[in-house]
């Protein structure tokens, strides 16, 4: 379905159904510009698999990502973090609406051939190192397969190249002939990182890369990711539900709730001065490893509503302690409350 482009003033948002949004102009300082990205999944039902509804997994996400920085994406499970990451890489079919500009190029407008070339520039590290590696391929092949497919290095240098990538990621090159089951969780995650970095990407989506790992291994992987970022000037989109990890690794943070980016800004702003009621509640729930500190908890009532049937107006109004009549009726828009600090909430309307 072709996009309907409208001439609405910047920031204004049409009804969710018509996909209306204002296209953004490419700004060269940003490697990735995501504008009102929407991704709905159909719910099939009935005898002939009619579409009976839609799961609004990502419903209007807007952010820009500067070259060489890390953006953290946090939120509860089911809020659409992973779908956002995959939709940016065009890994889950066509988008429902919005724009994804990677280096100024609309990712969803590319032909299959162009997209294939772009795949070397954008990579993903998956969540679970135990299920994201093919069990029947030796490690050297896992890492090198894509390199060979894309003809990144001449044939005679191929082996040395794979060795070097493995070495960079803290793997022993002589482990090349081993199979994934022979490695521990931390090492498998290193293999996943090596596989992503072997293609010399500019942008890597890290989808909960440390969630499945032990605390001491987590630290190793986070340090490795940071070190590689400095070395290769990588840009990360770091998806995690562990807020302390996100604070450690990110330069900017986006907080998602039910398919919406409710708050977005620099890590310092977000953690020192959370503005959206959901962000406040989320941060107050972080357990502090200090028994003498008793946090004032903002306990959210109930649980996250179904994205197939989201609440009207502001999606957070069912659980928000500051809910007003306006929140129920009108959908808030993203506003820049401080320089570089965006909030989607009626409380901060001028």
């Amino acid at each position, binding site marked *: 379905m072709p996009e309907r482009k409208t001439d609405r003033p910047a920031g204004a948002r049409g009804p969710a159904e018509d996909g209306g949004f204002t296209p953004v102009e490419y700004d060269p300082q940003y490697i990735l510009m995501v504008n009102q990205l929407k991704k709905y999944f159909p719910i099939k039902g009935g005898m002939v698999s009619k579409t009976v509804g839609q799961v609004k997994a990502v419903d209007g996400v807007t952010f820009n990502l500067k070259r060489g920085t890390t953006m953290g994406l946090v939120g*509860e499970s089911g809020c659409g973090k992973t779908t956002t990451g995959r939709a940016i890489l065009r890994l889950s079919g066509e988008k429902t609406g919005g724009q994804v500009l990677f280096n100024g190029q609309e990712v969803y407008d590319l032909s299959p051939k162009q997209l294939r070339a772009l795949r070397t520039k954008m990579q993903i590290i998956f969540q679970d190192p135990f299920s994201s590696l093919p069990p029947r391929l030796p490690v050297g092949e896992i890492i090198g397969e894509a390199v060979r497919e894309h003809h990144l290095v001449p044939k005679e240098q191929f082996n040395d190249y794979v060795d070097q990538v493995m070495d960079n990621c803290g793997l022993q090159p002589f482990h090349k002939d081993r199979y994934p089951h022979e490695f521990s969780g931390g090492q498998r995650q290193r293999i996943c990182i090596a596989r992503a970095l072997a293609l010399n990407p500019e942008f890597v989506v890290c989808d909960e890369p440390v969630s499945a790992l*032990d*605390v001491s291994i987590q*630290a190793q992987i*986070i340090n490795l990711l*940071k070190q590689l970022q400095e070395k290769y000037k990588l840009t990360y989109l770091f998806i995690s539900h562990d807020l302390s990890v996100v604070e450690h690794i990110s330069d900017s943070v986006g907080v998602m709730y039910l398919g919406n980016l409710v708050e977005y800004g620099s890590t310092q702003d977000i*953690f020192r001065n959370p503005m959206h009621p959901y962000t406040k509640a989320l941060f107050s729930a972080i357990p*502090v*490893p200090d*028994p003498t500190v008793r946090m004032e908890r903002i306990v959210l009532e109930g649980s996250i509503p179904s994205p197939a049937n989201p609440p009207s107006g502001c999606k957070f109004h069912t659980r928000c302690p500051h809910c007003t009549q306006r929140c129920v009726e009108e959908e808030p828009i993203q506003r820049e409350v401080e320089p570089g600090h965006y909030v989607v909430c009626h409380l901060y309307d001028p």
Partner: protein
Amino acid sequence: MAKKHAEGYLSAKEARRISRENRRITNAFEKRRKRRNVSEAEYLTRMRDSNNAVEFDNLHTYFFTDAGTVKSVDGVSFDIPIGKTVGVVGESGCGKSVTSLSLMQLLQRPQGQIVEGEIRLNLGNKAYDVVKVPNERMQGIRGNVVSMIFQEPMTSLNPVFRIGDQVDEVIALHDGEGKSRQDVKQRTIELLEMVGIANSEGVYRMYPHELSGGMRQRVVIAMALACNPRLIIADEPTTALDVTIQAQVLDLLRSLKNRINSSILFITHDLGVIAEIADYVVVMYAGRVVEKGTVEEIFANPSHPYTIGLMASKPVVGKKVDKLYSIPGKVPNPVNMPNYCYFKDRCERCVETCQGEYPPEARLSPTHTVSCYLYRDGKGESEDAGAEN
């Protein structure tokens, strides 16, 4: 292939020999366990301190696998006082869960066996040594005296039965004498309300897939509380949950513990959660307790290098560090563990005496002990260690 054999792979002959040997050992244990009509005197014991709900005393739980003996729990001793929460922290594979499964006698038998030690369980007027309690008596202890909340609320509920039926079953089985079906249902609804499920009548008729993760965990907690147990074992109850739901579940556990005055054995790898909920902390590494003390002592004055490393490797909100500390190396292979300090190879403060036997417990305060040669009884770090740093 020859290279692989050199690196710890077993030949078929060797594997056969090990498995024969294992069968001999486990058969002996099983034979003892399967005796009928064991008199109560055999497993009656006395608590060292009657204020403790459970005392683990030098517990050894081994798994006799075909690759060799895995000493999952190797000499663990700690107490759970009545009405307190004891948190057990450690990385995966350090024996946290096996310790709790030993207490419940839910080990994977016949490979898994408690080979040594006592677990003394306080039953009020008497005490049992759980290790020796026969199966048919254990049935009355599980659920009634000790109950367990498992890690994954998704997998610990049966998907084909309604929530109400599953909770009813627990009550009918353990506490059902003289109760009609109506009474049992009444109690189930009461329990569901106690754990904060608003629509308890509705949830009673639902299937597990209709509930969210947090709600399912509440149902599992309700099941664990069904018979007012003296001890609740919570095995990573919040690991699979989001932070906001985790905060709700922790609050719930805290308030329920006070309400029915039971103790909690809380197993987790998250130090933040431990600080929130525990009164005492036990830090485990490779099947041994490396440090234990009150929660204030452990967090204000972590002493074992492993505890210190564990704390430093977790990023903390509000504390900016450039590079996270990561403990070098990895957990040693659990098969055929050496008899020196297991942490020696990863320890940055290793001293000469570390080459010797496994370090004894040094007492830093009446409640704070640490197994490390850097410390001696009553003193902080010993002199010679200070000089080396």
